[in-house]
């Protein structure tokens, strides 16, 4: 009876493998998000003027601010269908073509986040007193929300999104 003992480790080994695959709930995506505001200042170093982005805590009417959204999947599984939704805060208006976001599908809303469309498809209609209807393309400053949709953020994956606003 010299053959039996070696089978034990094999069995144990199998068990271990089974255990790992049988507990899929251990693998989970975990998205983390942070948002920061920055504004550009002109700095003079050794007579050379350079533009530099600094963290903003205050702003005045007419200022341009850049909001940067950083996301990271700190989980151990891909996050799918990540929808990053950012209402444009009251008191600010979106600056046309300022949005960035690699690998993201970007859309906007002009109705408080009910509907989202690509910028070029954002239209609304006005019924004139004459009864006819006029179609208008929404102006960027009318946007109420920005939405980035990212199909998949792999485990450990991260990215950066940004857009600019003007303080009213």
């Amino acid at each position, binding site marked *: 009876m010299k053959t039996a003992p070696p089978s034990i480790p094999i069995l144990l080994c199998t068990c271990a493998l089974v255990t790992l695959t049988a507990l899929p709930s251990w693998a989970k995506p975990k998205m983390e998000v942070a948002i920061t505001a920055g504004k550009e200042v002109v700095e003079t170093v050794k007579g050379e003027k350079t533009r530099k982005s600094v963290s903003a805590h205050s702003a*005045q009417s007419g200022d341009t601010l850049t909001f940067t959204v950083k996301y990271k999947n700190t989980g151990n599984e891909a996050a799918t269908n990540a929808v990053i939704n950012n209402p444009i805060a009251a008191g600010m208006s979106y600056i046309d073509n300022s949005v960035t976001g690699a690998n993201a599908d970007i859309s906007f809303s002009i109705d408080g986040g009910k509907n989202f469309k690509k910028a070029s498809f954002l239209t609304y209609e006005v019924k004139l007193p004459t009864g006819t209807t006029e179609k208008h393309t929404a102006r960027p400053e009318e946007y109420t929300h920005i939405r980035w949709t990212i199909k998949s953020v792999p485990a450990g994956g991260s990215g950066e999104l940004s857009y600019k606003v*003007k303080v009213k």
Partner: protein
Amino acid sequence: MKSRNRSTSSGALRTLFAALAVTAFGLTTLSAPANAAVQGSAGNTIIRNTVSVSYSDAGGTAQTAVTAKVDITVTTVNAAPTIKAVTPSPGSTGATGATQVYAVEIVTNSNGPGSISLTASDGSATNITLSATTPAVAAPGSVFLGSSIIDPNNAGFLGVAQNVAVGGTITFNIPNDGGVPTDSATTGGATGNGIVNALTTGDTVYLYDGTNYYGKFSVTTVTDNAVGTGGSAAFSTITLQNPASATLPVAFTPAYGWMIVEAKTLNVTVTQGVITTPTNPATWTTTFTGTMGGQTGTGNVITNATSGLLSVAKYVRNVSTAVVGGTSIAPPINGGGATFYQTGVSGKPGDIMEYLYVITNSGTGAVKAVVATDAVPTYTTLRSSSAAYGADATGGATGTIAIARRTGNSTDQAIKADNSAGNIATAFGKSTGTTAGSIMTYYLGNGCSTTAGGDLTAGEIAYVVYRLKID
């Protein structure tokens, strides 16, 4: 278009949504007037930007969304204040030392609370005192004024015509100020103290759309809410009442970004100094300057001063031998009848010549301290006790005085009041002697003395008569 229309994208827009044609993606927008003068955001406003991420796992199961937020505080920007009203306009003063109090109303144009100083200046003819203020302010000459804006979260109000009846109120949501200002300082406040951006109960405010002011209104209530932890900062509210004293329209169609600006009134006293060069009409312009952080706004008011304007003309007649000359006058003194001439009168040695001054105040106010001097001409001798002009002289018209120098001695003496039906005017006169070169001095007008002249009020004429004998 400036940004005001997007106000409609959240609040009133949704209201209009139902009323107007809506398509699949339909939103209706209103055109609000673009007013470059108003700042869209109030100072101290906390703009909260909240981002949220919803996602699923690999199997498509939705996970708990995560959020993050960042707050930006809007800076208060100094702006040139408006001198809204100066009353009365024009003002008026009497003679030197008379005062006129002006109520100077200052309105802030800043987007937040701040101190505004007031100065006043004008020509050298006056001096100015900044006096008691209404309401009282901490430091004379400066006021601390609050300011906020109509928040975008005012569904039902924005774009909808309002008309606030006398005694009625309207309540607006206004941005949260983080509790920072007090009613008299930019810092030191606290949430819940009933003060938002230095606006509080009892304040006087206007609504301002960048072009027109509405009101003014009395602030009856301010709720000063905590910022909170929500997706956006909690707003505060302000309730405005139309007092019976509203001076401007109270019917308006409010929009997001309209300013709610505080007004205060300072009383400024202008004192009339000596007007060294009398002119009629005598006026001057006082300029009031409000300054906030180096930004100035000015307003002017005209003060009409009453000022005397004196002229003198000299005539003569030959008493001994009548000689007809040119440019005559028959003054209403001594019963009238005597005619004096400016030119063409001659005399021979021994003739009695009678001289006449006519001193006229043709101004709008009194002339003070009227003193006339003359010298006995060469080759003549001053007559004393000239009987034609004694204490019983009559015939002066109302408002005139007739005087005659009766004696030639050098002592002061009363010489003549006008006819008693008119103004009571007294004159004194004296001469250093009767020979050629003697100086005659006349103290004329109401309130004169043996050493000082008195007043001639507007329109009054003084006649001074004396006689000489040609040597």
